[in-house]
C-alpha cells in the first residue's frame, strides 16, 4: 500500500469513527447553538453601542459568533482532538506499539485528526452556523470565490491546530500526566484564538501580540477572509508559516522523545 493511501485510510477511519456517535454529535450541535445564542446577545449589546467596533458591523459580528461555534470542535480549540488519546497511549506505554508500526507517528496522528476535523466541520459546524445565519441578521458574502478562499484558510487552520496540539501531546513523554498541560493550552487557545472576543477588538499592544500568535490562525484568519477583512494570500502565508514551524517543532520533539525517553512498561 502506498504511503499516501495509508494515511488517506487513517483519515477516513478518523472521519468514520467520529461519525458513529450520532447522539454525541447532536448533543454537541445543541450545546454549540446555546453558547452561540448567549454570545450573539452580548455582541449585539456591544455593537449597538459601538457600531464599527474592530472594523466589523453588527451583521459581521454575528457571523463571527457562529463561525466560532462552528470551529470550536472542528479545530478542537478547547481540546477534544486526537491528542487526548495519544497522551493516554504515552501514559500507559501503548505508544510503543505505534512506534514500531511502519508509519510515521506524526503523519499518522495528523491524518487521524484531519479526518476527525472534517467530520466535526460537517457534523457539528454546519448546523449551528446555518441556524445562526437564519435566525439572526448575519453577514454572508454572495461571492463564491470568497467562500472557496475561506475554505482554504480553514484547512490551513486545521494544520496549525494539530501542530499545536501535537506538541502538547508529546509533553506527556516527560510529564506523564498531561492533564495540566492540556488545560493550560486550551485556556490560552480559547482566549488567544478569539473565541471570547474577536482579536481585532483587543486594544493596543495586546491586540498586536495576540494577532501574531499561532492561535490567530484558527478562527480569526478564516473569519477575516470570509468577512472581507484580510488579503487571502497574506493570510495563507501567515498560517502556512506557523504550520511549518509547529509541525517542524513537533518532529524535533518527537525524535528527542523517542530517542531519550524510556517508554512506560507494564
Amino acid at each position, binding site marked *: 500500500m502506498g504511503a499516501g493511501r495509508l494515511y488517506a485510510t487513517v483519515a477516513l477511519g478518523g472521519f468514520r469513527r467520529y461519525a458513529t*456517535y*450520532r*447522539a*454525541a454529535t*447532536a*448533543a*454537541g450541535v*445543541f*450545546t454549540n447553538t*446555546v*453558547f452561540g*445564542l*448567549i454570545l450573539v*446577545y*452580548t455582541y*449585539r*449589546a*456591544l455593537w449597538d*453601542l*459601538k457600531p464599527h*467596533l474592530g472594523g466589523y458591523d453588527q451583521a459581521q459580528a454575528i457571523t463571527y459568533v457562529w463561525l466560532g461555534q462552528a470551529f470550536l470542535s472542528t479545530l478542537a480549540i478547547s481540546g477534544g482532538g486526537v491528542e487526548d488519546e495519544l497522551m493516554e497511549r504515552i501514559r500507559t506505554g501503548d505508544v510503543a506499539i505505534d512506534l514500531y508500526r511502519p508509519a510515521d507517528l506524526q503523519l499518522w496522528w495528523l491524518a487521524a485528526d484531519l479526518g476527525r476535523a472534517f467530520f466535526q466541520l460537517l457534523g457539528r459546524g454546519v448546523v449551528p452556523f446555518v441556524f445562526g445565519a437564519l435566525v439572526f441578521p448575519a453577514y454572508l458574502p454572495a461571492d463564491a470565490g470568497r467562500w472557496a478562499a475561506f475554505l482554504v484558510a480553514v484547512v490551513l487552520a486545521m494544520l496549525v491546530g494539530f501542530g499545536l496540539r501535537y506538541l502538547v501531546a508529546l509533553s506527556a513523554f516527560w*510529564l*506523564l*500526566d*498531561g*492533564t*495540566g*498541560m492540556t*488545560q*493550560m493550552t486550551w*485556556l490560552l487557545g*480559547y*482566549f488567544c484564538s478569539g473565541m*471570547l*472576543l474577536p482579536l481585532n*477588538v*483587543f*486594544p493596543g499592544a495586546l491586540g498586536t501580540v495576540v494577532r501574531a500568535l499561532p492561535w490567530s490562525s484558527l478562527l480569526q484568519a478564516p473569519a477575516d477572509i470570509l468577512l472581507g477583512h484580510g488579503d487571502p494570500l497574506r493570510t495563507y502565508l501567515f498560517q502556512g508559516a506557523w504550520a511549518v514551524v509547529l509541525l517542524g517543532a513537533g518532529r524535533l520533539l518527537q525524535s528527542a522523545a523517542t530517542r531519550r525517553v524510556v517508554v512506560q512498561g507494564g
Partner: protein
Amino acid sequence: MAERGRLAEGVRAYRLIAGMWIRSTMAYRASFAMTTFGSFAATFFDFVAIMLMFSRVDALGGWSLPEVAFLYGLSAVSFGLADLVIGSMDRLGRRLRDGTLDTLLVRPAPVLAQVAADRFALRRLGRVTQGSLVLGWALSRLDVDWTAGKLLLMPLTLLSGCAIFCAVFVAGAAFQFVAQDASEVQNAFTYGGTTLLQYPPTVFGKELVRGVTFVLPLAFVNWLPACYVLGRPYPLELPGWVVGAPPLVAVVCCAPAGLAWRAGLRSYRSTGS
C-alpha cells in the same frame, strides 16, 4: 430515621471517596498545581474578555463594570462550589457505556454519593477562588445601600445558587441514563448557564429571560438577588417577595432532580460487558 441514616451514610461515603481521590491527585503534584492554576485561569480569561469589552464601552445593557463583576462573582462562586462538590457527575455517561457503573451498584453505599465523589477534583477550588476575588473587587467598588436584609441575602444567594446548579448537574446525570452519548447536552445548561448569568439580563431577549426565570430558574442564582441589592429593575414584572425566593427555588429544583435521578437509576440496564 432510615432516611437520615442513609443521608449520613451517603455523606460518609462521599467523604471517604473524595479523600481517596485527593491523595491520588497529589501523586502528580506538578499536574495538580497546573490544573488548579488552570481552573483559576479558565474563569480569569472569561473575566478578562468582559474587561476588554469594557475597555471599549462604559456600560453593557446599561450595567457598569463593577455591577457586571458583581453578577459574575455571584455566578462564578455558586457554580464553582457546585462544580467542586458534584461536577464529576458528567462522567456518568462514560461509566454507562463501559459498564463500570455496575461496580458502584454492588458497593454498600448510596450510588449518588459514589458518582458525585468519583474523581473528586480539588483543583476546582481555583474557579471558586477566582470568583470570590472578582466578587470582593465588585463589592469594594459598588456603592450599595446595605441593609440587614441585603446582607443576609448574600450568603443565602450563594448557597441557593450552588444548590440550583447541583440540581442541574443531577438532572443532567439522570438524563444520561436515557441519552448515554449525549452527555454534552448538560454543558449547555451548566457551563452555558453560568456564562449566561455573567451578563446583565437586559442584554438578552425577553423570551430568553422568561425561560431562565420560569422554566429553568437560573435567574434566581444571581440576576434577581443582584437586581434587588443594586436597586435595578428586572426586565420582567415580578411580585416583590420573589427576592427572598432563592432558597425556596433551590428546594423546588432539587426535588424533581432527585426524583429524575431515582427514575434514571431504576431504568438502568447494564451493557453486560
